[in-house]
């Protein structure tokens, strides 16, 4: 077993100390909490929070983790479903990713997430760690990841900054996904100047599992052990929370925290194999990936989803940077880490698997029956909270919305250029269209991705949907497509979201699969702008209505807000992923004609 580092001698802000010093000034505003949110924390605790508690609440109540602006709207995805739509749903919204029954005892889990901002700052690593994060979501459901997709949006193709972003982001996605041995089976590549200062890097991962292998993120059974494994914890992703570098908030010692995170795909590949072996040997009761909000999120979500509480000793966390304070350790977003709950009987088996794969781990504490999440630092309590108040009972906003004043005029404006007349002009127009950056051949990007690895790819680029075989003997498999059109959504966010869904649904259907389920990544501007909020609400309403009309449920997804440069928001961009099923992928239909003499039909309206 690994040894815990000696506890640092910080001026630790314990629960006891917090209770005794109610008037201490706390940097809640710097940590992103609003005044009423801070007051609510004080009310919940009945005292001021400790530094570590403040770290946890602030990060878990952030827009990114709490969905505080979007929650009231996302509810529709649960409300507008019929029993029939839930027929194939083994795990619905609320877990790391939804799980869909595809028959023959097999299930599939899939989800799309954004890594927009980090990819703008450091394109390669931002995109790479985006792939890493979504893949860990899939593993944490108990599944083997089998493919990735990458819907991307960039600024104008001839803008001087675009090359930096495109090349960095594409090689980052390839560098990480290729190294994990996950075929890349599709995505999107769109250039539009609205994304200039805010590219969209969405990543989708899909995994397969047997029904009995489903794992959930909950910590149950008092006495069960809590373990953190994978990479060591560093100062990643806490740059914005530098006030925490001094636990007592008084010292001004400058402390070096990484501005960006670097991915380690090798560590993640080993983590995947190691987790699959844990699942196979049935040695974990619950499991959670560490992404945004790191240990804060993992401990509070596991405890909140479980039936008791949790008691953790934070000095047991293996550190890459020994100067981290408890608050920073709780907030760190270091990649390639997982947290699991293991019964005492399985501890040895767990350790044997870690040793086999040479993965570092440390036992942090155990599940309790107290209903409290208690975190100690060298034996002194620094966090004592009801985990639900951190993970699930954060603030919920009904933000003001208003239909943009320009909406009528943008809808009213129509194409006033000259229409091509005559076959020569039409031919020229078609050629010009086909040569435009958004229509032309994309193999210069897709050839940088491995589509062969794992040997189950039945369709990939440039086809409408990616198709993966799940069962090698029967040919059972799935098709996935992701689509969005920011311009349509800008003109009419309600119809735009429906159109994105319809396009994705059609792509899956034309490949020959029966559409079953939906995931979405909702990329929008600032929710504090009532016009953006209106776009968001309309899009969700459109997507939920569209799903009901088509009879496919949303099983999970991600919301990415604040996508704007200065005061200008991106076009509302709801990226929709549809998953369909095949009895036998041999029946898949590629796009395009492959032989001479075939008849051409145009179907639909």
């Amino acid at each position: 077993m690994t040894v815990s580092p000696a506890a640092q001698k910080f001026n630790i802000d314990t629960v006891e100390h917090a209770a005794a010093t109610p008037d201490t000034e706390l940097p809640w505003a710097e940590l992103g909490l609003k005044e009423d949110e801070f007051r609510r924390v004080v009310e919940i605790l009945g005292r001021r929070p400790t530094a570590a508690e403040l770290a946890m609440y602030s990060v878990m109540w952030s827009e990114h983790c709490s969905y505080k602006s979007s929650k009231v709207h996302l509810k529709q995805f649960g409300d507008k479903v019929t029993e029939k739509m839930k027929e194939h749903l083994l795990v619905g919204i609320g877990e790391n990713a939804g799980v869909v029954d595809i028959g023959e005892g097999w299930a599939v889990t899939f989800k799309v997430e954004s890594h927009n901002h980090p990819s703008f700052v450091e394109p390669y690593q931002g995109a790479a760690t985006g792939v890493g994060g979504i893949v860990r979501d899939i593993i944490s459901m108990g599944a083997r990841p089998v493919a990735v997709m990458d819907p991307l949006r960039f600024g104008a193709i001839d803008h001087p900054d675009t090359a930096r972003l495109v090349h960095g982001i594409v090689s980052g996605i390839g560098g990480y996904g290729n190294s994990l041995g996950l075929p890349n089976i599709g995505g999107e590549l769109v250039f539009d100047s609205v994304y200039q200062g805010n590219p969209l890097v969405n990543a989708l991962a899909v995994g397969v599992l047997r029904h009995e292998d489903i794992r959930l993120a909950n910590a149950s059974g008092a006495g069960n052990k809590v373990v953190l494994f994978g990479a060591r914890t560093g100062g990643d992703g806490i740059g914005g929370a530098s006030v925490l570098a001094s636990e007592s908030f008084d010292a001004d010692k400058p402390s070096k925290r990484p501005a960006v995170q670097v991915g380690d795909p090798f560590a993640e590949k080993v983590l995947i194999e190691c987790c699959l072996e844990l699942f196979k040997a049935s040695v974990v009761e619950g499991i959670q990936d560490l992404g945004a909000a790191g240990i804060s999120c993992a401990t509070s979500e596991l405890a909140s989803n479980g039936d008791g509480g949790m008691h953790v000793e934070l000095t047991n966390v293996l550190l890459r940077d020994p100067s981290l304070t408890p608050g920073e350790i709780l907030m760190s977003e270091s990649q390639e880490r997982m947290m699991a709950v293991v019964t005492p009987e399985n501890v040895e088996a767990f350790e044997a698997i870690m040793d086999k794969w040479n993965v570092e781990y440390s036992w942090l504490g155990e599940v309790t029956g107290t209903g409290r999440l208690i975190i100690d630092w060298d034996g002194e309590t620094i966090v004592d909270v009801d985990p639900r108040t951190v993970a699930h009972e954060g603030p919920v906003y009904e933000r003001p919305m208003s239909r943009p004043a320009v909406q009528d005029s943008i809808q009213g404006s129509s194409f006033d250029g000259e229409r091509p007349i005559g076959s020569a002009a039409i031919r020229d127009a078609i050629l010009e269209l086909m040569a435009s950056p958004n229509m032309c051949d994309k193999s210069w990007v897709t050839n940088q991705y491995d589509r062969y690895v794992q040997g189950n790819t039945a369709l990939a680029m440039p086809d409408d949907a990616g198709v993966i075989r799940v069962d090698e003997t029967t040919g059972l498999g799935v098709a996935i497509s992701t689509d969005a059109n920011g311009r349509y959504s800008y003109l009419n966010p309600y119809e735009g979201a429906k159109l994105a869904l319809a396009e994705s649904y059609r792509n899956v259907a034309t490949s020959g699969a029966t559409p079953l389920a939906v995931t979405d990544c909702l990329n929008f501007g600032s929710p504090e702008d009532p016009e953006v909020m209106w776009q968001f609400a309309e899009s969700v309403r459109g997507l939920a209505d569209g799903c009901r009309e088509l009879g496919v449920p949303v099983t999970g997804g991600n919301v990415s807000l604040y996508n704007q440069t200065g005061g200008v928001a991106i076009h509302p961009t709801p990226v929709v992923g549809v998953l369909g099923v095949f009895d036998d992928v041999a029946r898949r239909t590629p796009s395009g004609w492959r032989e001479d003499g075939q008849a051409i039909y145009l179907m639909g309206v």
Partner: protein
Amino acid sequence: MPRIVVDVMPKPEILDPQGKAIAGALPRLGLSGFTGVRQGKRFELTVDGDVTEEVLEQARTAAATLLSNPVIEDVTRVEVIPEA
């Protein structure tokens, strides 16, 4: 011909997966004298003629812009190496 060497190392606070993998491999080769490894890059720029201050300044610019990514790396040296 004279050469200017530019050393670029991952910033100390940034994860260095390459160094980590090497550090893990050394003990398996019986080389256990090291507590950590970091892997950086070394560039050698050849100069035709004298290394003037202007050329050296060009090398510094290259180091800061093209040869390193200031978000994750530090330029630790830009120096003329004497001809062998």
